[in-house]
């Protein structure tokens, strides 16, 4: 399955079924993330319910502190 993550195409394994799976796939599970899935902002508890389909658009932002 191919999806768009932060504007770039990304080929993900078949077992990546939802946003939570994508976070694990990208090894981002330790960070608090603000995620938009097809222009819908998700609360954390929705990550497992947000099913991924071919061509989906996902935007992921995390806060950093440096200045």
């Amino acid at each position, binding site marked *: 399955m191919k999806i768009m993550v932060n*504007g770039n195409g990304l080929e993900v394994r078949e077992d990546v079924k939802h946003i939570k799976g994508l976070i694990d796939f990208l090894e981002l599970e330790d960070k608090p993330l*603000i995620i*938009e899935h097809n222009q819908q*902002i998700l609360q954390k508890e929705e990550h497992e319910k947000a099913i991924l389909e071919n061509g989906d658009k996902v935007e992921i932002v*995390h806060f*950093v*502190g440096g*200045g």
Partner: protein
Amino acid sequence: MLETNRYHRQILFAPIGENGQEKLNQSHVLIVGAGALGSSSAEALARAGVGHLTLIDRDYVEESNLQRQQLFSEKDMKQKTPKAIAAKQRLSEVNSHVRIDAIVGDAEIDLLRQIAPEADLIIDATDNFDTRLLLNDIAQKYQKPWIYGAVVASYGVTFTVLPDKTPCLQCLQEYIPANGATCDSVGIIQPVVQRVVSQQVTEALKLLTGNEAALSGRLISFDLWKNEHTEIEVDALRKADCPSCSEKRSYPNLAYDSRLKSAVLCGRNTVQLRPQRKQTDLDEVAKELQKNKQIKLFQNPYLLSFEVDSFRIVLFQDGRALVHGTMDQLEAKNVYHRYLG
């Protein structure tokens, strides 16, 4: 009077024009932090003709700053000039018509309470979320916009917080990294600073010239090395019961007991201590320290620096001390008390 030739290209830019230029001239911007982001923002705003800038910074110039902190020179580094002072000196050369207030110290509650009501907006150029949360609540209290910006490695993120319009930082609190670990163990490249600042300063120009409709309204992040650019509409994350921006607000970040007496500085192997006493007579302290022949002293009008054992201690006029060579707050306190009583 406006020097129209100086700002000619900016006045030609239609959304600003002569009116906008006059508004900039009448504006006061508070920039909190004069490191990488603060240097760059301050220079851009001074060149743009913002009439009054206030800079707050607690640190002094060191060699490793020169790679990305554009207002500072090797001379500042050799003289250990406080960043706010060095920034003011350089900015006055860049644009002598701008009033620049330089404050060497922490951006703490009492200080912000004095300055914020008179500022038109606040630019965040700090390196920690404790200060940002404080700025957030101050900005909500006095109904001022503030522009979050942060950088690490080749990644940057920015968001303009508007009172009563957008979510505030407290609304987004669950997304703040717990330990601030994003700090700088992974380094930083300079262009990412410019990228965040270009966004922050453009938003500031829009706000100051009455072009609110042109504001981005989005949380923006990018990674220059990975060629990523992301924008998210975060209005949905505004919390109806936010303790900082809702009707039920209590400004938790302005509670005095949340103030830190000591803090580990971001990725610096340094602890800052802020003892009870305030003003310090540096000459007096220097005289005392000179009795110990082991101690190598350096002094300028703003600070006193000395090396002892494996530590370097820098004492400022406002009583703060930076203890370099440790990240252990208890060890830092011990060293402090051994040499400074």
